[in-house]
């Protein structure tokens, strides 16, 4: 019994240490973002806030460009999400449920696209979008974010589509349902955790993208959150309270999304790894 208890104690200690490594930085952002400015920059940092204020968040919303960046990020991420979900589910349905000669090769080529380095594509995409007069537009960011989100999404959907019995589709088509009806009424509802995973992945990819946004967007009015926040870091005197509030507020939507459908997302990653 004592042996058993000791091993349990070791187990829980290890788990706690692991989760601390993951969580501690986030605790530090949120706990510090509610401290008074003097406490934030104090040379003797306090593990638990000694003061409490929401000034930094108020400043963020009222006297910085944060609301503009936020709106832009929401627009770009929502559009990326919608386009990725449509493109990836239709491609995944074609690849996995209606295989055709060469579909496996095509699947591999699509995955290869995912490996393709962003920094390699930065220069030519910049030239291409500039010749299309798309520099400094949100459309440019949407186009690029879909490119980076879609290939992985196709892979992510594989395990979910594979778990749906073909008999269901056959039954639907015997009942006279068209392929579109079958897809929308039979396949997609069963694969909905997969579709949710794709949506969350596309949203996050877009929400966090920095490199292309920093080059393709020129005017302040079109900037997204990562570039906006990076602008604050670059200033000569950093307002840490504002910056931490900005970091906290930028992370919050992702945490909320994850509370809702994070389970499916990780399940998708786990199942994809086993079955694919």
């Amino acid at each position, binding site marked *: 019994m004592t042996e058993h208890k000791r091993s349990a104690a070791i*187990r829980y200690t*290890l788990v706690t240490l*692991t*989760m601390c490594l*993951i*969580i501690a*930085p*986030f605790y*530090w*952002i949120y706990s510090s973002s509610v401290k008074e400015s003097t406490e934030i920059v104090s040379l*003797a*940092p306090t593990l638990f806030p000694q003061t409490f204020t929401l000034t930094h968040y108020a400043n963020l919303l009222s006297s910085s460009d944060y609301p503009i960046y936020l709106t832009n990020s929401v627009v770009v991420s929502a559009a990326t999400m919608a386009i990725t979900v449509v493109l*990836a589910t*239709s*491609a995944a*349905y*074609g*690849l996995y*449920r*209606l295989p*055709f000669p060469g*579909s*496996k090769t095509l699947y591999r080529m*699509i995955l290869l696209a995912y*490996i*393709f*380095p962003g*920094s*390699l*594509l*930065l*220069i*030519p*995409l*910049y*030239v*291409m979008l*500039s010749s299309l007069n798309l520099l400094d537009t949100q459309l440019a960011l949407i186009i*690029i974010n*879909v*490119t980076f989100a*879609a*290939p992985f999404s196709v892979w992510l959907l594989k395990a979910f589509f594979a778990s749906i019995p073909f008999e269901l589709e056959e039954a639907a088509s015997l009942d006279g349902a068209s*392929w579109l009806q079958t897809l929308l009424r039979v396949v997609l509802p069963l694969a909905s955790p997969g579709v949710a995973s794709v949506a969350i992945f596309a949203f996050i990819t877009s929400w*966090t993208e*920095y*490199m292309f946004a920093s*080059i393709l967007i020129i005017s302040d009015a079109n900037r997204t959150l990562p570039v906006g*926040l*990076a602008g604050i*870091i670059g200033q000569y005197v950093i307002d840490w309270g504002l910056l*931490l509030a900005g*970091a906290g507020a930028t*992370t919050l939507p992702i945490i909320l999304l*994850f509370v809702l459908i994070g*389970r499916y997302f*990780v399940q998708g*990653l786990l*199942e994809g*790894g086993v079955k694919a």
Partner: protein
Amino acid sequence: MLGVALVSPLALWLLATIAYPIFSLIRLSFLDVGVIGTGGEFVGFENYQRVLNSRAFWPSMGRSVVWVLGNGLLQTVLAFSAALVLNMPFRGRALARTWVILPWIVPTVVAIIVWKWMLGTSGGIVNTILLRLGVIQEQLGFFSTGNSAMASLVGINSWRFFPLLTIIILAGMQGISKDLYDAAGVDGASAWQRFTNITIPGLKPVLFVMGLVGTLWSVNIFDVIYLITGGGPSRGTLTMPVLIYDMAFLQYRLGRAAAAAVLMAAAVTLFTIAFIYFLAPREADDDDEGWQ
């Protein structure tokens, strides 16, 4: 041919945004282009010559190798440790397995802000804790020299990426039959023997993909480095992606930057071919459903 019709929108999209740009990158590397929209004369291999003879090129290639190796090593150690921990039975395991991915899904900029601040020298929490514990006598300058900045950046980047690898390893562990472990237990194998003789071989296909994709991802990391050190101090963290970015968008030498990008791509491609040739697990060859 409904299947083809359903795949083609995505295929065309990727053709336009990946395949065509790569073609135009190669074209650009032979042109004398500075600022976008200017120049454009064919100059043969001049861009390549200039890049190869520049003082920054080879050291940057070397730093990229150090960067990839450092990240690969640290992330593998972290991810294996975390996966072994999260594979044990404990209360709240499902929750822990979901939230472990958090560092991978937050914006890089947020990770940068918090780590830059935690590793600071005036009131940074890490220095404060280490000082109070008596581990160090004076503040560590995490970004003060080229080498220390490189090490710190590897640490920060690894913190961001090891969660994904943890999930991938956990997925691989689920695929290993429990019977193997039971049989080994009957034979009296130690935990370490079970790890080296069952877990590691069982994870081979997963480890192969992880090594390949992980390398390709980490070699391209730009934002973490650029936003924290900008390649400094004294070029100590100037890896290839940062060098290419500098050439293209700060020095306005698009043609030359394109040549540098092509050279880097060539190096990465050679690595990929060698990696697949020497390390591809045999089973993956005939398994069409293989982990690609």
